[in-house]
């Protein structure tokens, strides 16, 4: 049995990605240049982080709609602790992550204890988190952040933008969790058949709680990156980000019915979204048409995936 990060079913997505890149490379000479690739990867990083988080959730058969708002809260929280000459940079980072984890825990507890569908619970959390972000910041952007904090989203190490390093690091960690740990195995089991998972002695509630917390933390990482990159904690940031993240996961082959999906697929899904929006920007296509293109791609990806799965 050979171990590959990308399973056979995902070659379709990989091929689609390569074709899109080739077409764009011919259409715009700027596309395949190193600076542009750096831009694409930096832009993709936030969506990919959120998409990794929501992939865990979707694999267990759940969904999280609160990502965009949780991103804003954790960004605002981080920003309020990131003013120059107050705390060392680790403090705003930890506070932001804690905020994300707290919302994940909140989602997880309500979903496992109340049996209310995740769609509804996280729809509520989406509004609650947005409200808290606005309350916390009194509706104003939180600016004047320290240089060390701004390095997270804007800095480079050996010419590589720091967000790209975080992206690669997060991808490796998430892939390991999903493929190599007991947690990951249980996630697939719960999404595949929750009752059978329970009958096999799995603590279903604990694992579900865990995936929402993981999702919250990854979202917070995204929130910290964004806040640092725009050097402001924006309470209105991240609106609609949850949909981009879910789209990336779905394009990457994650099944909304649960039990199926990989981090490599989700990363490819996020890259496809990023490459297309970048390419269309380069070609001066209006953002209206970009939205249209994105919708078509999501549906096409799922249609292809489901026709492939037919016997």
């Amino acid at each position, binding site marked *: *049995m050979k171990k590959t990060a990308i399973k056979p079913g995902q070659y379709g997505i990989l091929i689609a990605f390569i074709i899109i890149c080739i077409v764009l490379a011919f259409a715009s000479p700027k596309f395949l240049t190193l600076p542009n690739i750096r831009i694409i990867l930096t832009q993709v990083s936030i969506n990919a982080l959120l998409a990794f988080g929501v992939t865990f959730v979707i694999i267990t058969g759940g969904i999280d709609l609160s990502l965009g708002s949780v991103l804003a809260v954790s960004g605002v929280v981080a920003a309020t602790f990131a003013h120059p000459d107050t705390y060392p940079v680790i403090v705003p980072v930890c506070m932001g992550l804690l905020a994300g984890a707290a919302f994940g825990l909140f989602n997880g507890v309500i979903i496992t204890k109340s049996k209310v569908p995740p769609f509804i619970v996280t729809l509520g959390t989406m509004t609650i988190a947005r409200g808290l972000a606005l309350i916390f910041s009194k509706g104003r952007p939180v600016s004047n952040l320290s240089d060390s904090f701004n390095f997270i989203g804007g800095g480079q190490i050996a010419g590589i933008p720091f967000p790209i390093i975080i992206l690669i690091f997060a991808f490796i960690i998430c892939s390991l969790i999903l493929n190599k740990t*007991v947690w990951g195995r249980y996630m697939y089991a719960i999404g595949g058949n929750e009752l059978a998972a329970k009958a*096999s*002695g*799995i603590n279903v509630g604990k694992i579900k709680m865990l995936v929402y917390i993981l999702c919250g933390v990854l979202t917070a990482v995204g929130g910290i990156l964004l806040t640092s990159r725009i050097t402001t904690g924006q309470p209105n940031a991240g609106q609609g980000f949850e949909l981009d993240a879910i789209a990336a996961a779905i394009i990457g082959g994650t099944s909304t019915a649960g039990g199926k999906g990989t981090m490599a697929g989700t990363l490819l899904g996020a890259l496809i979204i990023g490459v297309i929006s970048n390419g269309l920007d380069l070609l001066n296509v209006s953002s209206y048409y970009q939205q249209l293109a994105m919708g078509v791609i999501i549906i096409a990806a799922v249609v292809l995936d489901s026709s492939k799965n037919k016997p």
Partner: protein
Amino acid sequence: MPSTILQVKNLSKSFGENKVLNAISFLLRKGEVHALMGENGAGKSTFMKILAGLLQPDEGDIELNGQPLNKFDPLAHQKAGIAMIHQEIMMVPNLTAGQNIFLGREKEISGSFWVNNEKLHRKADDILKQTGLHINAGTKMQDLSLAEMQMVEIAKAVSYDAQVIIMDEPTSAISDREVEKLFGMIRNLKEKGVGIIYISHKMDEIFRIADTITVLRDGQYIGTDAADKLDYDTLVTRMVGRKIETLYPEAGTQPGEVLLQVRDFSLPGKFDNISFDLHKGEVLGVAGLMGAGRTEIALSLYGMQPAASGTIRLNDKMLQLKTPRDAIREGIGYVSEDRKSVGLITSLSIRQNMSLASLGTFSGNGWIRQQEERKAIEQKSAELQIKSSGISQPVSALSGGNQQKVALGKVLLANPEVVILDEPTRGVDIGAKFEIYKLIRQLTSEGKGVILISSELPEILGLSNRIMVIAEGKQTALLPRNEATQEIIMKYATPGQLHAQIT
């Protein structure tokens, strides 16, 4: 000689390299119940699917009333008069029986775009009466029992003027009393000249209802005979291809000391005051009608649905079982009667399923030791003789018998002291059945205690040391093997009788 309805000649079908049907011939007459027998993988389902128009054969001819069928499309076959009753009910639960019968044909019944429910139900009532069913066409499907739903499905086939009805294991999930009703309906259809192709693993049923029996093995046609010319042993030998000397292997060891003590075990509305001991190396059979509460008792012993009162002691230690996790940790394993929704996660691989209840032993600090896991699963899989293309094959691609072995393997890998088997041979072919029986004997020789819940009395009698009978949630008897016969068990299992005589 009654006239032929369906004639099949030299039918062959391959999937890739694999020849699943090799020159099969088959003949069905008017008013005949023709049983199709064979182990899983013999080619029965492929044959049925071709007849129902779901698959196209590579070679061969099918004639219905002398007319060749060459368009392989489910709708065309249905129109031509071949109907298939699937193992799983394919009906819309929130519509009425009548609405289901005429689903897709509302327009021709009502005569206009607007659905005339009254007319539809009246027509459906006619059909239900014709087929000898006492069901009101206005009843919602979800309010019917499984058997009734199945019979409505048969009525639907009749409403299409089906001349050939294929029934794929129609009794796999219904109670004995309902089987009688179904057989009544089948006899009624026979009189009307309908030909029935009947598939079942239950031998006694086959001999009761079938006129003719055709056996397939490994895609080959083995033979066709009148049912009254065949006996049980000959039929089994034909199906398996070798002689199975004794279906129920002898126990090599005697039961030892008490392992599990259950006292005054109750869950209101489900079961009441159940008390029994299970000894090391013992098989305790649990008999009773479907719905008597046998599975509920098992689920409570396994922590899926904790009992309200009573005690469980294992090796003299009092157990508090609130979840299956607790039960597995204490050494109790449960193989569910419902493989697809409780026993297995069919989308996952053999490996992922088998290690699920014992992943703790293959991991450290949360990391799975992949090599160790793979080795253990490969070993267990070989031990249980699971036929697959490898342990990463998804469970959904396996036959019923092999799926059951995966479910068994999962439970055994957790190394339980008490193994509860709930209908372990349901939907399993005779070869795999025999292997499961041998496995039970192996477990008892290792000193494990086995609780065997089964609706097949020969199985209970063939394997158990003692037999507990449950009727309407109450324990009506606890018999040593030598005092039990099918008749005695049935007497205790029938509700409303003998409650006064319990000692």
